[in-house]
Structure formats: structure tokens, C-alpha cells
């Protein structure tokens, strides 16, 4: 029994006077307790919206969410606002992209930590302050007791993100969703934060959904990876399998486009041609077809379904949504 089971999740945005826009189009995946799952894709592929709809953080109006997201057997999408509020922070938590704007600028850091503790663990202010100092210490913030009284603008970017992670994990949620947590940080800090995340989720046996567009992040962290394109999952595999034998042309293209230090001088980069705006809606075939090197007429006529793929599945079962996947023989071994 999975910790989180997402089935056929769809989110359609509808603003006054505009065309409805399907941001998430039938996404399904599982997260096991203690597992780290990656949601990978370019901007606009629907990964953040997926996370926000699971957490119930989408605006009340202007969108329609269908499908199912079952967390520990409870259907989240039909819960009332109050019921969802009880769970957020306590059972499932989220860390966002920009650490500075994600913190309230006019109240001290300590208060931003203790308010979660007071809310869900019923602690008194005094006790919560002590616990808050412990939490800040655990995420590697030096001199935590002094930090409690400081304001967000007095901390560096890395420290703020650490504080946000501390806040998210304060009540020991079973599931943590991290939405591009390192994108806004310097590269050196990125590595630190990711290492911190890996360590923490292992210590507390917390499941982690890692949302990112950066394959390097995925490679270091995730047990299982879902690749999203145009609001749908197009490939799912274990980390090693995915990187060794990428099957979907999109995944393959992503990996091939990463510049390599050991490439011969003068070798050209190989981007994926076209852009995300060149989607075809999924109802008329495969959304990736206009950009796909393997595309055939079938690809634009028949919408591919998510099906088990036996090629290159050393780690475990893998799923693939493609009519003309990349053959393993044609690939280099990705170290």
C-alpha cells in the first residue's frame, strides 16, 4: 500500500474570456513510504501544478481538479478546507523555490518555525522556541538561538532555504514535496541543500517528491523518476534504468543535450528542436510529436498510452508512453 497514490489527476485552468488550459492531463504515480520520487520536466509541463493540487493550494476559483490523490487511504481532493488545513504541515509539507519571498519579511524566523509547532503539535511558545532552535541546528544553521530573533533579510539564501526545510519537517510529516528547492540558489549551495535533504529524509524516513527540471538533481537523489511532458507522465523508471537506458525520445533528448566535459572539442551541442510551446494537445496524438526525431504518422494520429516497458528494466518495472521509443542498441552508455 503506497503512501501516496495519484490516479488520473487533471487540472484545467479557466479564466474569464480565455480558452481553458489543461495544465495537468491525467497524471498517475505512486510514492512509497520513505521513497524519493522525482517529477522531471521543463517549465510549463505541469509538475508544480500537480504538487499544488495534491496539497490543496490551488486558488479556489479558476480551475477544475479531477482524478484522485489518496494519501494513506484518504482521498485528499475531496476534503474540506478545514480538513486539508489540519493535514498540511502535519502529514504532508512543501518547500518552494524562492527562499526569500517564501518567508514573511516582518516577523522573526523563530516565530515562523514555532507557529507550525504551536499549530500541529500543540506546544507552548516557550517549548516551541526550544524545539525551533533544535530544528535550525539540525538543518545546519550555525548559532541557531540567535537566529530565532533575526529576520529573513538578515540571512543568506542558503540559510533561508534551510530554515524553510526545518519549517517543513518540524512536525515530522510523512511526505515532503520539494518544488525546485535549489533553482534560486548558487551552485555550491545547491549541492549542500540537496545533501541536507537527502540526509534528513533518510533519518526521518520521510517520503520525498522532488520536482525539478535539472537531471543532475534527479540523478543524485531520486529512487524513481517520472518524466513529464505536456501535463502527462511519458516515462517512469528507476533512477539507474532511466539514465542507463532512456526510452522516451524526450528523456533521451534531455540527457543528450547535457554538455559533457569529455566531449571532443568542436563537437556541436544537441538540443531538442522546437520548444514546449510546440505541443499538440494529447487528444490528437502524442504531444511531443512535432519535436520528436522518431515521430511517424501513427504518432500524430494515435495517442500513446502508458504501458509497461521491459527493455532495460534492471531496477524494476518501468512504464512508457511512446509508439517509437529509442532502441537500447543506439545509445551510448551514460556513466
Amino acid at each position, binding site marked *: 500500500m503506497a503512501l501516496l497514490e495519484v490516479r488520473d489527476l487533471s487540472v484545467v485552468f479557466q479564466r474569464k474570456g480565455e480558452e481553458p488550459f489543461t495544465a495537468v492531463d491525467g497524471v498517475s504515480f505512486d510514492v512509497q513510504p520513505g521513497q524519493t520520487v522525482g517529477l522531471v520536466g521543463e517549465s510549463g509541463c505541469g509538475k508544480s501544478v500537480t504538487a499544488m493540487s495534491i496539497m490543496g493550494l490551488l486558488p479556489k476559483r479558476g480551475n477544475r481538479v479531477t482524478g484522485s490523490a489518496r494519501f494513506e487511504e484518504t482521498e485528499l481532493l475531496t476534503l474540506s478546507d478545514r480538513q486539508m488545513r489540519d493535514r498540511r504541515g502535519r502529514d504532508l509539507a512543501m518547500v518552494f523555490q524562492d527562499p526569500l519571498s517564501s518567508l514573511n*519579511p516582518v516577523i522573526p524566523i523563530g516565530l515562523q518555525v514555532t507557529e507550525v509547532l504551536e499549530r500541529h503539535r500543540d506546544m507552548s511558545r516557550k517549548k516551541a522556541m526550544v524545539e525551533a532552535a533544535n530544528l535550525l541546528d539540525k538543518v545546519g544553521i550555525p548559532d541557531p538561538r540567535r537566529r530565532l530573533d533575526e529576520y529573513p*533579510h538578515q540571512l543568506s539564501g542558503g540559510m533561508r532555504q534551510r530554515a524553510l526545510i526545518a519549517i517543513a519537517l518540524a512536525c515530522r510529516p510523512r511526505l515532503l514535496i520539494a518544488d525546485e528547492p535549489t533553482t534560486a540558489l548558487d551552485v555550491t549551495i545547491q549541492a549542500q541543500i540537496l545533501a541536507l535533504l537527502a540526509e534528513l529524509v533518510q533519518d526521518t524516513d520521510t517520503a520525498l517528491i522532488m520536482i525539478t527540471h535539472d537531471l543532475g538533481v534527479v540523478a543524485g537523489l531520486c529512487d524513481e523518476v517520472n518524466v513529464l511532458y505536456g501535463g502527462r507522465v511519458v516515462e517512469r523508471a528507476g533512477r539507474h534504468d532511466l539514465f542507463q537506458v532512456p526510452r522516451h525520445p524526450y528523456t533521451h533528448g534531455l540527457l543528450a543535450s547535457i554538455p559533457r566535459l569529455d566531449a571532443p572539442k568542436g563537437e556541436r551541442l544537441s538540443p531538442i528542436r522546437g520548444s514546449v510551446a510546440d505541443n499538440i494537445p494529447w487528444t490528437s496524438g502524442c504531444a511531443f510529436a512535432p519535436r520528436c526525431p522518431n515521430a511517424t504518422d501513427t504518432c500524430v494520429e494515435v495517442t500513446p498510452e502508458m504501458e509497461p516497458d521491459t527493455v532495460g528494466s534492471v531496477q524494476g518495472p518501468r512504464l512508457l508512453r511512446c509508439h517509437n521509443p529509442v532502441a537500447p542498441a543506439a545509445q551510448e552508455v551514460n556513466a
Partner: protein
Amino acid sequence: MLRYTVRRLLQLVIVVGVLSLLLFAWLRSLPGGPVSALLGERATEATRAQLTEELGLNEPIFVQYWKFLSRAATGDFGVSTGVQPGDTAGEIFLQRFPATLELSILAIIIAIAIGIPLGYVAARRRGGWLDNLSIVGSLIGVAVPVFFLAFVLKQVLAVDLGLFPTAGRQAGGIDATRVTGFFVLDGVLTQEWDAAWDALRHLILPAIALSSIPFSVIFRITRAAVLDVLDEDFIRTAESKGLTTPVIRRRHVLRNAMLPVVTTIGLQTGALLAGAVLTEKVFAFPGIGQALALGFERRDYPVLLLLILCAAGVFVLINLLVDLSYALIDPRIRTTGGAR
């Protein structure tokens, strides 16, 4: 923080200095010359000569300015010629200032008590009927001249319906003890409840009329500020923590939205003073607003000079206080020493 305060105080001094220069120039430009202006028409030759001497009109302009400043410093602005003939301008100011202050305070309280909650709700239910209605209401509030609103209130509620007194500050029959000069407060302090209540009744209509000016602005600024804050990322974080709505509203939304609102309230005092001139005239309310209106009508220059200087001075002071309080409220300014 200290450096910031000092810097602002210096600015205040400069502004007051330039203001005094302007007023001095103004005094010298009055029709008929300063002596006629300050003494009125029926002054004897002897008094004229004496004033000419005191103002130093036969001496170089620097001396005149210096004499002007020293007279001002000692509070000598001359004797009223039209508003309350016989009383010095200074006396008039001291008598009437508490009245206008009391009126303004009540007006601001009304504007805040209605404007801020309404602004918050309008922002939360953006596009709803309350939002649209309030916006239209506040726009109309700006378009209606305050003295006309005062007229209508007086006519309908005081004259026709007799619910409120039509003029003045306290009914003639009531014998009240004066402590602070604030009639309502005095009544409360001396426990003369009927006096306090009567004073309050006299304040309500002019205060409502006067409050229409700051209300519109406070409402719209609150609404805009709350809308801005609701879009911020840290509200999303607060929601993701599962905090209750009242906590988010108090600690995250309002605490941030109030920053621009507080500045606005300070700036509104200037508009209040201007509105007081018109409102007090309609309600014959004996404050400095009425003194200014009468002074202008009857060309009572001593009174005008003093009141304009005081009005400007009060406004500048309040702006300074608002700026300083901003530094206190916003920790980003407080902890970086006022660097903005």
C-alpha cells in the same frame, strides 16, 4: 535608527525654515502692506507707527526677517481683526486647536474603523458584490465635495429630523468643567456624563462628513495592499503550513498590508485639516478650521498667518512621526539603520 531620526529632524528644520521664509514673503506681499493687513483699517496713526517699528519696515530686509522670526518665537502674531477682534492670534489658536483636534481624531477613527475592515473584506472577496459596491462608494466619496456632504448631513439629520445639534461644540445650557480642552475627554474625566455625551453629539455629524475624505483613500489603499500581499509567496508558505485562517490573516496578511496603510493615514491629516476648514464652517464648529474660513472672509491676517504656519507645522510633524513609525514597524528598515 538613530541616524535616520537625526536625518529626518534636520529635514524638518530645513522645511520649517523655508516655510518661515515663504510666510515672511507672503506677509510682505499682502494687499495694502503688512501694517494695514495686520492692524486692519481702523488703526490709529500711533499704532501704525509702532508696528512699523516693530516689524522693522524701515530697515534692511534681513532685519525684518529677523524681527519676524523673533516675534513668531515669542508667539506674538498680532491681534485678531476679524475673527475674534481683540484676542491675540495666539489665544485664538490655543482656544480652538483642541476642538479641531478632537474632531479630526474622531474623523480618523471613523475612517479607519470602516475603511480597513472593508478594504480587507473587499480584497478577500475580490470581484464580489461587496467589493464592487465599496469601490463605487469610495469613488463617490472622493467626488462629493466635503462641504456639500456636510450640508446634506446637517439638513437631513439635524434640521429636518432633529437627531443631532446643528452647530457649535456644546449646548449653551450645559455647564461643563474644562480640564484638557477636549470636551468629551473632560466630561469623562470629571464624570459629567451629560456634558461628555452632549459634546459627542456635537462632534458626530461634522466628524462623519470629515471622515469621507480619509475613508476613501484608506479603503482603497487597504484593499490594494491586501491584494498585493495575498499574491506574495510567503502567504503560500503560510497556507502550506496548515495554519488557520485567522492566524494567517493577522500575522501574515495584515501585518504586511498595514505598512503602506499607516503611511497613508499620516498623509491624510493634511487633507483632514483642509476638510476641517470647510466642515467647521458649515457646522459653525469653533475650531481652527472655522477661524481660517472666517479669517479669510474678513481678511484677518494675523490669524491667517499663525494658523497657516501651525497647520503646515503640524502636518510636517505628523509626516515625520509617520516616517519614524514606519521605521519601527518594518523590521527591514529598523535593522539596516534606515538605509532606504
